C-alpha cells in the first residue's frame, strides 16, 4: 500500500513540475522542451524502481531499473560483441546492400514511365507484407552467421527505399526539366544535377523508415538460428534462462542503436537537403 502511495506521489510530483514547465513563460525554449520529456522519463523509471523494490516483484517478471543498469555496466564486453554482430555486421551491411539495390532498380525503372506505374503500387504492397517471416528461409540458404541476417535486412529495407526513390525521381516540374534542356543537359547530367537532388527528401524519408526495419530484421532473424553471439540470440537465450535483466540490457542497446542510427540519417538529411522548406 505504501509502495503505491509513494509511487503515485513521485508521479504527481513529476507531472506537477512538467505542468509548471509546459505552461511557463519559456516553455518553447529548447532546454525546456528537452527537459520535459526527460523529467517524464525519469519519473516513470523512479516509479518503476519504487514499485518493484517495495512490492518485491520477482526479477523474472520485471527487474528493477537499478538491476538492469548494473547488469548493463557489468556486461559491456558481451553487449558490445552482440552489438557488433547484429547491428554492424547484420543490420548495417544489409541496409547498405538493400539501399544500393533499391537505388539501382529505381534509376533503371525510372527510364520507363510504364515500369514506374507498375513498381509504385507493387512496391508499396510489398512494403506492407511481413517480410521478416522470410528469415528462416535465408538462414537455411546463407547459414546462421550474419550473412543471412544481412540478406533479410536487405530485402526488408529494399521496398520502402525503392518506392520512395521512384516517387522522388518523379518530383520535378516540367519547367525545371525544360530549363535543363535549354542548358543542353543530357540524361545523366539532369539526373545528377536536378532529379536526384530533388528526390532527396523522399529518399531520406524511405531511409528513415528503413533504419528501424533494419534493426528489427537483424534481431528477429537471429531467433531462427545464429552463432552464440548477437542481440537476438542473447534475447532468446536469456528469456529461456529467465535472466530478464540481460534481456532489458539488450533492449536498452537496441533502443540506443535505433535512435542513433535514425539520428545519424536525420542529421545527414539536414546537411544534404538544407534547401528544402521543411529544413529551414
Amino acid at each position: 500500500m505504501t509502495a503505491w502511495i509513494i509511487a503515485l506521489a513521485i508521479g504527481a510530483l513529476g507531472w506537477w513540475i512538467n505542468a509548471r514547465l509546459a505552461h511557463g513563460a519559456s516553455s518553447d525554449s529548447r532546454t525546456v522542451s528537452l527537459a520535459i520529456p526527460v523529467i517524464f522519463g525519469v519519473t516513470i523509471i523512479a516509479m518503476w524502481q519504487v514499485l518493484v523494490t517495495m512490492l518485491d516483484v520477482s526479477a523474472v517478471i520485471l527487474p528493477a531499473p537499478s538491476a538492469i543498469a548494473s547488469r548493463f555496466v557489468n556486461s559491456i564486453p558481451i553487449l558490445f560483441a552482440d552489438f557488433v554482430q547484429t547491428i554492424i555486421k547484420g543490420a548495417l551491411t544489409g541496409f547498405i546492400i538493400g539501399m544500393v539495390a533499391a537505388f539501382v532498380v529505381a534509376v533503371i525503372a525510372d527510364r520507363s514511365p510504364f515500369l514506374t506505374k507498375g513498381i509504385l503500387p507493387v512496391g508499396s504492397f510489398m512494403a506492407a507484407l511481413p517480410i521478416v517471416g522470410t528469415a528462416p528461409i535465408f538462414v537455411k540458404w546463407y547459414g546462421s552467421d550474419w550473412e543471412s541476417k544481412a540478406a533479410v535486412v536487405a530485402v526488408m529495407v529494399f521496398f520502402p527505399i525503392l518506392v520512395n526513390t521512384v516517387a522522388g525521381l518523379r518530383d520535378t516540374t516540367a519547367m525545371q526539366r525544360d530549363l535543363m534542356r535549354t542548358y543542353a543537359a543530357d540524361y545523366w547530367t539532369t539526373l545528377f544535377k536536378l532529379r536526384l537532388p530533388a528526390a532527396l527528401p523522399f529518399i531520406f524519408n524511405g531511409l528513415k523508415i528503413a533504419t528501424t526495419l533494419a534493426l528489427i530484421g537483424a534481431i528477429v532473424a537471429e531467433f531462427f538460428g545464429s552463432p552464440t553471439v548477437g542481440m537476438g540470440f542473447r534475447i532468446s537465450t536469456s528469456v529461456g534462462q529467465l535472466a530478464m535483466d540481460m534481456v532489458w540490457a539488450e533492449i536498452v542497446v537496441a533502443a540506443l542503436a535505433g535512435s542513433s542510427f535514425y539520428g545519424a540519417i536525420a542529421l545527414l538529411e539536414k546537411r544534404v537537403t538544407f534547401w528544402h522548406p521543411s529544413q529551414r
Partner: protein
Amino acid sequence: MRSALPIATVVVVIFAIWTAAVVPMNIHLTADLAGRQDIAVTPETPRERQEVGAISLALQNTSIWGMTYTLDRPNLPSPHQVAAELYKSVFTVAPTSRRSLIYHAWVTLSATLLGFLIGAAAGILLAVGIVYNRTMDKAVMPWAITSQTIPILALAPMVIVMLGSIGVQGLLPKAIISAYLSFFPVVVGMVKGLRSPDHMQLDLLHTYNASGPQAFWKLRLPGSMPYLFASLKIGISASLVGAIVGELPTGARAGFGARMLVGDQYGQPILTWAALFGAAITAALLVAAISLIERKTLGRMGMRMAA
C-alpha cells in the same frame, strides 16, 4: 484502372525471376538425387559437384532441369509447388483441422485483430489527450516519436514470458504485442490529424460560438479521418507482424509463425513458403479491408480519397 497493365507486368517479371531462379538454387540437390537414380550427371561424383558453381552446374546438366521443379524438399520451391500447397491446405482439409492453413490463419488473425483494436483505441485516446493537454503533449509526444525509431518488436519474446509467468497465456500475450506495435503509429498519425484544421477553420467555429466539445466532434475529429486511416493501415500490418513474431520464440503450436517454424525445423520448406504467402495474403486482405472502410467513410463524409 489504367495502371492494371503495368502492375501485371511487374508481377509477371517477379514470378519469372523466381521461376528462373529455381533451377540454379536446386541444381545441387537435384544432381545428387539424379546421381542416385543412375541418371548421367556431369561431373559424376558429389565431391566434384560441390566445387562447381550453381549456374555452371545447371548449364552442364540441362537434361535434369525439369526435376528441379518437383523436388520434395527444395531449397527454393517453384511457384506452382507453393500454390499447390496453399490450395491443398486451404481448400481440401476441414478448416478446424491442424493441417488447415485457415485454422492457423484464424489463430494469428484473432490475436492480430484483438491487439489492433486495443492498440488503435488506446492510441486515439492518447492522441486526444495530447492535443488537449499541453503538458502531455510536451512530455509524451517526444517519446511516442522516439518509439518509432526503436525496434520494439524485439520485446516480443520477453512480453510472452513475462505474461506467462504471471499466468496469462494463449491469445492475450500475442494481442498485447500487436497492440503496442499498432499503438504508436496511431498516436502519431492521429495527433497530426486532430491538429490538421487550420486557424481559419477554428476561428470560424469561434464566431459560431461553438463549445469545445462541438469543435472536437464537428471539426477536429472529422478532419483527422484521412490521417487516422493512413495510420490504421500501417498499424494493422504492424499488428500482424507482431502476432507472427510473438509465436516464434515460445514454440507456439498454432498460427502462421508456428507453421513457419515447423516447416523450418522439419525440413519442409514448401510449408514455410505456403505459410509465408498465407501471411502475405492475410496482410493484403486486412489492409484492403481498412481501405474499403476508409473509402466508404470518407465518401459518406463528402471527402474524396487522396489518390
